[in-house]
Each structure stands twice: as C-alpha cells, then as structure tokens.
C-alpha cells in the first residue's frame, strides 16, 4: 500500500467520525497549548528579571569591603583586627584599570531630613555625578550632582520624587534648601519615579556629594564602589584589575569582595530556566493523559471497526497495512491537535501579554518543538497496542460477527 493511500485512508476515517476526532483534537490541543502557554510565562518571567538586572547597569562590577570566605569565619576577629576600610582613594585608584569606564563610590546612611517644620527619616546616599549613568537614573526636574573632584563637596542634593512631595508638598522643590543633620543642602534635582531597584527605592532617597556624606556620617569607609566596565567582554579584566589594584594598596591583602552582575544574573537565569522547564514538564503530563485518551478511543475504534478490518484483510491487506492505517490515523490526530494547541497557546500568550505588557512573554523554542513532538510521540506510542490488536484480528471471525 502506498504511503499517500495509507494517509488518505486514515484521513477518511478521521473525517468520517467528527465527534471522536474533535474530542481527541481537544485533548491533544489542550496539552500542547498548556505546555506552550506555561513555558512562555516562565520564559517571560526569566526575561523580565534579566531585563531588570540590565536596567541596573549593563556591565556592572560591585566592590564590597571585607572578604567573603567560605572557609573560616571572620579571620579579622581571630587576629584581633578588622579588615581595613575601603576608602575614596581606593576607589579613585581603580580608574587606573583600562577596562573601567567609570565608577561611583557609595556611602549609605540614614538621615533626618528637614524642611521648615516637616521632617522625615530617609536613606541618604553619598556619591558622585557618575552614579546617574551607572545606575541609569532619570531626572524629573533639574540636574544630578555636579561633576567635579569628589574630595570636595558643594552643598547640593538630589531628592527622590516621594521625598520631594512629602517635604515640599505642592511647592516646587527645585532651588529650595533642606537640612540633613546640621548641614544645609540646596535641591538641584528631583529624580524621576522609578520604583524599587535592587534594594533601594529611588523615590525615597536623598543623594548628596560623597564628601558631604563622609562629613555627615563621620566616616571614611565606603559602603561599596559601583564600577562599570567598558564592555561585556571587559568585565572579567575589570574584575581582576580591581582585585590586583586593591591588593597592592592594602599591603598585599585581599580585603574586598568583587561581585559581577553577570554572576548574579546567571544564577537567576539558571533558577528561572529550571522553573520554566519544571512547569513545562508538569504541563506535558496533560499530553500523556491525551495519549491515553487516544489509546482508549483507538481500542474502541478497533472493536467498532472489526468488520472493516476483517474486510480489509479479506481484500488482501497485510498486518503491516492495518497497523500503518491505525498509526497514521493517530499521527494525523496528533498533528491536528498539535497545530490547534500551538495556535491556542500562541493566542493565550498574546492574551496574557495584553494583561501584563511589561513582561515579555515568549514561548521558548524548545517548548515549541518539544510539545508537538511529544504529542505525536505519545499518539504513536499509545496507538501501537490498538494497531497490533487490529492487525491480529482473525478475518473470518471479524466478518462473521454482526
């Protein structure tokens, strides 16, 4: 029997019982659609997180004081001295590395910010003009901190949108003075509302020049240094340069921890990828259920079509012919179900995309390939038994029973 004829015959059967066909298409379609939709949600979440990290600064390297070690706890305590602080001079020395584009030293503290009778406790960041570019901050009004030598400070500050609203009310904050502790700062800029990003709500902070923060909190120690590498490829060089320069300046001791954004990102990436795979796998169980449904329907079909199978054998069909007819029937149904499922899954993905436009829902390529393949594989697998049973029917008995 020719392949085209086998498929044609199976097609006639599939068309001949629309109710049964619809049922199987539905089961297969739901399975495939579930895999596509669920995995595209997972993939969307992953891409969303990756993008969020990207918004922090694309080639970010973070320098933290203190050595984080897996072996031995707090060596400084044991020898009776803490690691040396990370200072502004350390930070400025990092500019020697050719892989570093720019950097922003950071001091963080809490300050009592007052305007007239209003007062508010807010996080106060001390940094330099470069922070704006490194953290991709945007201004609603005015300007960011002025560039210049970070060792000297001007009495200016930049405030978050919420802080400005709470302290100045309806009044325009720009150009006004506020007081932090015993120092006065003129507001030169108001940050655009950006919401939370990696630990800080930029709406609720006040940023002052680094030297001013040093004086305010009476410390030389930097909270951390944010370094931007010149390119993605330069991140590794920047990291080793930073470690090298700081070891030199700290008498050969490694007293800092250098974290690349890539490392953090890769971890998140891995976790979310695994999650997507897991939920996709769960959805694939529905494909197995659909496969069992196909098997049931096929077994019933063999019983119902005893006559026809007996007749085909009487007309000269071999066992192989019969098996192929049943298998191609299953493959046709699975193909139809897969096409239906991919369409519905894609529509579902577009629909969720409309609901949450900020999350980039896309079905990962492996799901788009694996789901229909699994559908066809289960359909074939679960049709083997019914097809064998059909092929083994004794034509005399199949024809005689009415």
């Amino acid at each position: 029997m020719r392949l085209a004829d086998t498929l044609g015959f199976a097609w006639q059967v599939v068309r001949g019982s629309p109710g049964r066909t619809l049922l199987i298409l539905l089961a297969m379609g739901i399975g495939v659609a579930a895999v596509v939709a669920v995995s595209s949600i997972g993939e969307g979440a992953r891409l969303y997180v990756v993008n969020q990290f990207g918004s922090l600064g694309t080639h970010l390297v973070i320098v933290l004081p203190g050595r984080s070690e897996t072996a031995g706890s707090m060596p400084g305590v044991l020898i009776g001295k803490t690691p040396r602080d990370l200072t502004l001079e350390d930070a400025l020395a990092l500019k020697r590395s050719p892989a570093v584009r720019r950097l922003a030293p950071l001091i963080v503290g809490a300050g009592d910010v007052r305007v007239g009778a209003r007062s508010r406790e807010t996080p106060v960041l001390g940094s330099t003009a470069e922070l704006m570019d490194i953290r991709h901050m945007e201004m609603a009004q005015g300007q960011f901190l002025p560039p210049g030598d970070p060792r000297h400070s001007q009495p200016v500050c930049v405030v978050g949108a919420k802080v400005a609203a709470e302290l100045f009310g309806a009044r325009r904050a720009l150009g006004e003075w506020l007081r932090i502790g015993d120092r006065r700062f003129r507001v030169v800029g108001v940050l655009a509302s950006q919401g939370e990003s990696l630990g800080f709500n930029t709406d609720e902070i006040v940023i002052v020049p680094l030297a001013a923060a040093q004086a305010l909190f009476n410390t030389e120690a930097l909270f951390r240094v944010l370094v931007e590498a010149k390119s993605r490829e330069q991140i590794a060089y920047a990291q080793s340069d930073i470690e090298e320069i700081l070891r030199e300046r700290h008498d050969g001791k490694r007293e800092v921890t250098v974290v690349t954004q890539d490392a953090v990102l890769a971890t998140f990436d891995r976790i979310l990828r695994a999650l997507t795979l897991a939920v996709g796998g769960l959805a694939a169980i529905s494909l197995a259920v659909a496969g069992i449904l196909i098997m049931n329907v096929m077994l019933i079909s063999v019983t119902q079509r005893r006559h026809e199978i007996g007749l085909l054998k009487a007309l000269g069909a071999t066992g192989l012919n019969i098996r192929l007819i049943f298998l191609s029937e299953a493959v046709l149904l699975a193909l139809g179900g897969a096409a239906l499922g991919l369409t519905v899954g894609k529509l579902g993905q577009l629909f969720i995309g409309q609901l949450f436009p900020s999350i980039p829902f896309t079905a990962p390529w492996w799901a788009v390939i694996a789901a229909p393949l699994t559908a066809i594989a289960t359909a074939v697998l679960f049709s083997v038994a019914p097809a064998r049973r059909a092929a083994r029917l004794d034509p005399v008995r199949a024809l005689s029973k009415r």
Partner: protein
Amino acid sequence: MIRLSGIERVFRVGEEEVHALRGVNLEIARGEYLSLMGPSGSGKSTLLNVIGLLDRPNAGRYALDGRDVTGLDDDALSRVRREKIGFVFQFFHLVARLTAEQNIELPMVLAGIDPAERRTRLARLLAEYGLEARARHRPDQLSGGQCQRVAIARAMSMRPTVILADEPTGNLDRHTGQEVMAVLEGVHHAGGTVMVVTHDGEIGARAHRRLRMVDGAIVSDERGAGGGHGGT
C-alpha cells in the same frame, strides 16, 4: 488450478471438537461455474474460507495455480489473496464512509497499484457493471442490487483467479437476486471462475457444476448445464 486434498478443519468449541471439514478433496479448473449447497453447519462457508485463504486447514494440502499455499504465513496469504481471490459477501461488506468507486478501488489501493493505472481500471469496471452514475454515491445511497454490483466490481478489480461468492443473493429480493446472479454469470462468460455458496436451490441449480456438502464432506458432485440458464 485449485487442488484441495485431504483438507481437515477442526474447531474447538469449549471442550468439544467440531469437524467442519473432513478430508475434503476438490479440484476446480479454470473457467468453471460451481455452486456449493448443503444444510447449515455442513461446512460450506468453512470450505469457501479455506479456498479463499481466510482460513487455514488443520491437515491436507492446498495448491493454488500450481503453488502450494498450505504453509504460508498471514502476510503471505494476504498477498496471494489480493492477487488471486475475489470475495462477494452476503452482506456486501462495503465500507460505509467510502463512495462506490472508492470501495471498488480498495483492493487496488491495498495492493499499491499506481493511481493512474487504478483510474483506468476503475473507469472500465464502472462501465462494465453499470455503475457510472452511482460512482460517487455512498453505500447507504445505493440499492441492494447496486451494492452487490459494487462488491462484484471490487472483487474483479484485481482480475482474480477465482470469484468466491458467499450467499450473494441471501440479502436481496428474488428479482434483484436474479439480476446479481446474471452479473456473476457474466463474469463466468468472460472466462472467470466463479464459485457460489447458497441455500437457494434455484440459484444453486444454475451452476454447471453442483457440489453438495453434508457434515463436512462433499457428498455429491454433479456436472451438466445447470437449470437451463446461460450455458456456455
């Protein structure tokens, strides 16, 4: 052409053994027109199934066109069957969802014959059995006589060595039955070998060679112009 010798067929029904065929010897020559009669349970259908390679004897030899087909496996039997045997059944056994022409084409499809060749043969068969106007009708849109003509055309599509008809008129009124017999006799006139199993004495009498079975054995084998109809 067909040579059966010492054919035994035993069915096991529960504890009992039923001898459907007891040492049947039979030779059929090309172009013969036979009828096979006998009471229910005498083994007519079993013999027909053995000749049609649908059933295997428990003992004895069967040679078809000079080839011993006794020991062939299922698939080999299927291939021989589709080349050499044409079946016509009492209940037509047409596939309900296929049109008349698709039903006629079925054996050729199963045999993997080229579509162009199939179309040529199909056109000839439709013309020969007066089915051109009904080619695209489904069985439920055809009369009993038309259904049986489709079945005969189907049986003839592979130009078989022998046409085996099991009660071909059993499901038809008398007049239509006569018509169908005329069609089968037409096959015989064209040189085909036809064997008809029937309960109907009148139908059986039309054949030129009349076999009678009782209890799994052939008890009489008469030859001669049958019943005054369509002699050669």
